[in-house]
């Protein structure tokens, strides 16, 4: 097979990732919401810190759309620090000196957990579109199987932002007895029509690339890099805010003093977006992008409970803390308030804070002292209540 694409090759992490892997055989299928069992399957994960004798200090971090299990260590693909090393680490709000932290790649991903780029054992070829469509609940079910495998009965805390926050909510709804505390950040209990629309634009960009080859690009030795880069460029705008774009780039020119009267990247913002698109295709699989965006689109926690979000949390003993950001227009504060209202109606224990930030949706991944303060206060208080030293 001829490889046309340059290294690094994202597929290098697919079947044998540079992380821990839990493998589940033909006798341990993952039952998918699409109605089909997935077997064999595997889940790539990382852990930090040590599980205490009571097995009571396990924290699960759930990653967002294009994240991975390398939350607090240098990424084997990009060489960059872990994607949430500001939040997770020694002395950080999620203190790895106190807690046993687990982070796993999602089902449908491309970093060591079974997904469309994984080798289909039946054909010996990548699954591509033969992979069943995944849901947020499938992701959580896979994580629960991993937690079982690790011998952990109940998690001290489940934490995540954006799509990670959806998984946090799903965990609390599906396994209320296994979640002591839940910290969903910059998220929603259902994906909005506007967000589904943005995702559809991204998917169409991938599928319009002739190198996508009906999803069989890995087998055919091509890569829909242009389509995936455009998808990433579009999506990246939704993660920022008008204020942040203006502050960072304004109308500044890139390495020039005047427009070139061409379609070159005259403006800094254009150059920045092109860079974001290009670097993304080096670390992410195009079909995974289709599957994982689809999982977010399908997410509607209330729909599983007769249309009532409050019913999803009825009788929950989990303590929640919900955080949103003022300039996040992708998962606006109104989405978080809907979660808070439902938790209130379900008489659950919930704290909520809206952090002032001009950094848009991405704020949850960035240096936001107020978010850290709220998270730290909530986690420490919950740890006291759980009797964690």
């Amino acid at each position, binding site marked *: 097979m001829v490889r046309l694409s340059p290294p690094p090759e994202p597929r290098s992490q697919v079947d044998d990732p540079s992380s821990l892997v839990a493998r589940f055989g033909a006798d341990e299928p993952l039952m998918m919401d699409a109605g089909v069992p997935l077997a064999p399957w595997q889940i790539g994960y990382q852990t930090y810190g040590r599980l205490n004798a009571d097995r009571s200090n396990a924290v699960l971090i759930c990653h967002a759309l294009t994240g991975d299990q390398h939350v607090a260590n240098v990424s084997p693909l990009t060489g960059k620090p872990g994607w949430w090393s500001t939040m997770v680490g020694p002395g950080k709000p999620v203190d790895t000196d106190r807690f046993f932290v687990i982070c796993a790649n999602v089902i449908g991903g491309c970093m060591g957990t079974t997904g469309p780029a994984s080798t289909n054992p039946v054909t010996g070829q990548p699954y591509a579109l033969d992979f069943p469509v995944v849901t947020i609940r499938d992701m959580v079910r896979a994580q629960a199987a991993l937690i079982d495998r690790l011998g952990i009965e109940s998690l001290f805390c489940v934490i995540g932002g954006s799509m990670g926050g959806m998984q946090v909510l799903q965990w609390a709804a599906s396994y209320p007895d296994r979640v002591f505390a839940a910290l969903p950040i910059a998220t929603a209990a259902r994906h909005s029509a506007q967000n589904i629309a943005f995702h559809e634009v991204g998917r169409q960009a991938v599928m319009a690339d002739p190198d996508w080859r009906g999803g069989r690009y890995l087998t055919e030795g091509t890569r829909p890099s242009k389509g995936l880069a455009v998808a990433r460029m579009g999506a990246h705008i939704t993660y920022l805010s008008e204020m942040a774009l203006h502050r960072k780039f304004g109308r500044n020119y890139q390495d020039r003093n005047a427009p070139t009267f061409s379609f070159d990247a005259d403006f800094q913002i254009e150059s920045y977006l092109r860079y974001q698109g290009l670097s993304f295709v080096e670390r992410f699989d195009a079909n995974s992008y289709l599957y994982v965006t689809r999982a977010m689109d399908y997410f509607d926690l209330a729909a599983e409970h007769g249309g009532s979000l409050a019913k999803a949390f009825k009788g929950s003993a989990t*303590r*929640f*803390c*919900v955080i949103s950001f003022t300039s996040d227009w992708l998962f606006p504060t109104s989405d978080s308030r809907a979660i*808070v*209202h439902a938790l*209130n*109606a379900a*008489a659950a*224990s*919930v*704290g*909520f*804070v*809206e*952090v*002032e930030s001009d950094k848009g949706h991405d704020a949850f991944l960035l240096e936001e002292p*107020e978010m850290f*303060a*709220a998270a*730290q*206060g*909530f986690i*420490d*208080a*919950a740890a*006291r*209540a759980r009797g964690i030293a």
Partner: protein
Amino acid sequence: MTSATFLTPTEDRAGHRLDFLLVTDMVEPGSKVLDIGCGDGSLLALLRDRKGVDGRGIEISREGVNTCLAKGLPVIQGDADTDLADYPDDAFDYVILSQTIQATRQPKVVLEHLLRIGRRAIVSFPNFGHWSVRFDLFFRGRMPVTRNMPYSWYDTPNIHFCTIRDFVELCREVGATMEKAVALDAGGRPIRVTLPWWAWNLLGEQGVFLLKRR
């Protein structure tokens, strides 16, 4: 109509506010409480520690919410004027509005929500009928600035001041039964129950009311 109770002044060795201690006395142990405008969570923490209540809070300031979260108190950032409508009926045993009603845009609507959400409501507020307030207006011709009301008229968050008599009238209007009514003097001590309403309204710096839906 009112069974005003005489309460002995509570010790303040731990630095607890006397009006908070008075409110705490009104709450049954182990009950479910919502504190609206809970500030830094002092009252909620007191209720949790002394009465074992399952307490929740709403606070408008981010600093207050963060302080509460760090104390392990489930507090949400919100606004009494807009967010109470989302709470179901009878969700709490008590809903507390401590030193906050005068800062709401629609005190009557807020009070009605309190009585709907909680089986009982506890409301405390600075009394605009206090003699010192009347003194400032009558003799100095100025809007009063006191220890309880430290803001100038142009920058005060307190946009709906009322007197104890005004509040009693509002309770009647919204159909609330007063189970307890206490006026606190300048030292935060309850005023003797034997005094008539007009004396309460003159001498009380604060009013604290335990209300029930009729």
